[in-house]
């Protein structure tokens, strides 16, 4: 009896795993993030890091024309996120509640998940021979006489960067929203319809409030990946689309560690700030406590 009790308390329920995990995780994830923030207050002199706290690097970050880069990064990331939300939310809704058969759902989910596992650089470099001056689209346009000269704006401008980022971030937007909508109880929707609610009312009063956690998740994942994107801008922007990640990699190759730290911190802070604004804006319409309570039941 006594032996049984001790086993239950110690090894059996595996509760030892949590303190171990929290310890290792704080050392390997939280400590590096703290160090990152701390290093952003140091500075580089003669290729050496000077360990004296100052705001020099942060001043440098905002004064050396990076403000423009930040604005561009934000603009591209927000545009991409909005387009993905506009296409992803209706698609997720159709997938979860559109009387779709389970086979179609499974196929769509698999198709949405597979891109996570395919190398990004080979997925993106193939757009070059498609959008190129002598590429597929220009050949098509010339052959059908839609255009009389090759369209140069198709590649190495901001346009292909937006376009391909919308495509590659689409699954990150759809999957969280789908998961949130999928757990909404069908009887709630049926009740609303029975009471004469139009599809618009069902969407506004039931699906939108209950799927907000999923929408927020989708926005965070898409925005985070769009803010830190570097494969699309460098491969399809052709050096004309300078974003924050380019600044990070150039500071990294120049071994300006405090600048790398400040820029990386800045990206995280930017993401957190946008998330905070979004949560506060949505709090006016929905009470989050109720959302989570209704999801649990």
């Amino acid at each position, binding site marked *: 009896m006594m032996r049984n009790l001790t086993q239950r308390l110690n090894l059996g329920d595996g509760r030892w795993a949590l303190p171990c995990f929290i310890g290792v995780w704080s050392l390997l994830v939280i400590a590096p993030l703290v160090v990152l923030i701390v290093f952003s207050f140091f500075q580089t002199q003669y290729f050496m890091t000077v360990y004296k706290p100052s705001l020099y690097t942060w001043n440098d970050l905002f004064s050396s024309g990076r403000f423009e880069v930040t604005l561009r990064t934000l603009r591209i990331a927000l545009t991409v996120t909005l387009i993905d939300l506009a296409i992803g939310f209706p698609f997720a809704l159709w997938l979860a509640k559109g009387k779709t058969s389970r086979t179609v759902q499974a196929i769509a989910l698999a198709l949405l998940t597979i891109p996570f596992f395919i190398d990004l650089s080979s997925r993106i470099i193939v757009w070059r021979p498609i959008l190129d001056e002598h590429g597929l689209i220009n050949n098509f346009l010339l052959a059908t006489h839609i255009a009389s000269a090759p369209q140069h704006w198709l590649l190495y401008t901001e346009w292909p960067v937006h376009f391909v980022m919308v495509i590659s971030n689409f699954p990150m937007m759809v999957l969280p929203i789908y998961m949130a909508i999928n757990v909404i109880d069908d009887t709630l929707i049926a009740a609303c319809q029975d009471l004469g609610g139009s599809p618009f009312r069902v969407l506004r009063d039931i699906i939108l409030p209950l799927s907000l956690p999923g929408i927020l998740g989708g926005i965070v994942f898409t925005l985070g990946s769009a803010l830190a994107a570097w494969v699309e801008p460098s491969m399809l922007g052709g050096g004309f689309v300078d974003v924050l990640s380019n600044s990070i990699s150039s500071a990294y190759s120049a071994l300006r560690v405090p600048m790398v*730290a400040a820029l990386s911190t800045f990206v995280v802070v930017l993401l957190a700030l946008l998330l905070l604004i979004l949560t506060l804006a949505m709090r006016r319409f929905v009470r989050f406590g109720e959302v989570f309570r209704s999801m649990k039941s």
Partner: protein
Amino acid sequence: MSNLVAPSRDLWSYARIWPGLAKWSGWGLLILIYAPLAWLALLSFSTRPLSGIPYPLSLTNYAALVHTPGWTGPFLISLGIALLVGLITAVIACFVGRAIPRSPRAGTIVLIALLPLFIPGVSLGAALFIFLRVLLGLNLGYWSIMLGHVIWSFPFALIIVLVLTTRFDHRLLEAASDLGAGPWRRFWDIEFPLLRPAIIGAGLFGFLLSFNEVQRSIFLRGTATTMPIWNWTMASSQQSQIPIIFSLATVILAVVLPLLCLVFWFIFVRIEKGR
């Protein structure tokens, strides 16, 4: 049937076009994800892939691929790292995922564990680089790439495991211990078989996420090279190497895609049967 009260307002929202629009714009984007992959495969057989027209067809790129020795090393290293990351992630996710539902502070712990999902890859890579290389002065290499990959794939693995562990019926374990089973017996004979689909799923996610990871690896590589890093450096610097990348990507796709389809078929059929 469902409209007992005659619709009077928001008539526009009854239009058939909305579900159709939602459906086809989504499928359209999915086509835009997959059509370029097919195009990539087609171009890999072209003699001049950068011209954008798959004509004339030949196998020269594949012959060049066979004679280019550079990619086999990174490929095998990536494979090895991915296998280890998958294994480590699955084991840790299994133990942490089992313990979380029993903890009084489950919400906080899950939030901390999911933190890497919300930190952009560049930032996390830079943070780990500064912490390990600059602060601790360690020599980076395969081990640090692996560490970065485990941190990156763990949240995904944990979510998969938590789906099953939060629904786990603990009365089964009590019944087992009432019948005299020890803790490891309870784990191996009852808990593990029930959690196996989630643990395998977690391991597969770890493997596949690690195999394609590039953002964190670039910071954590030291002098080591993995397959995605090799692809990235070739694709971004040397134009002459691009035909080889096309055929290499096609070969990898030809292996990975059927495998993935099999995995998903397996998962969905299993879930369907389990219901």
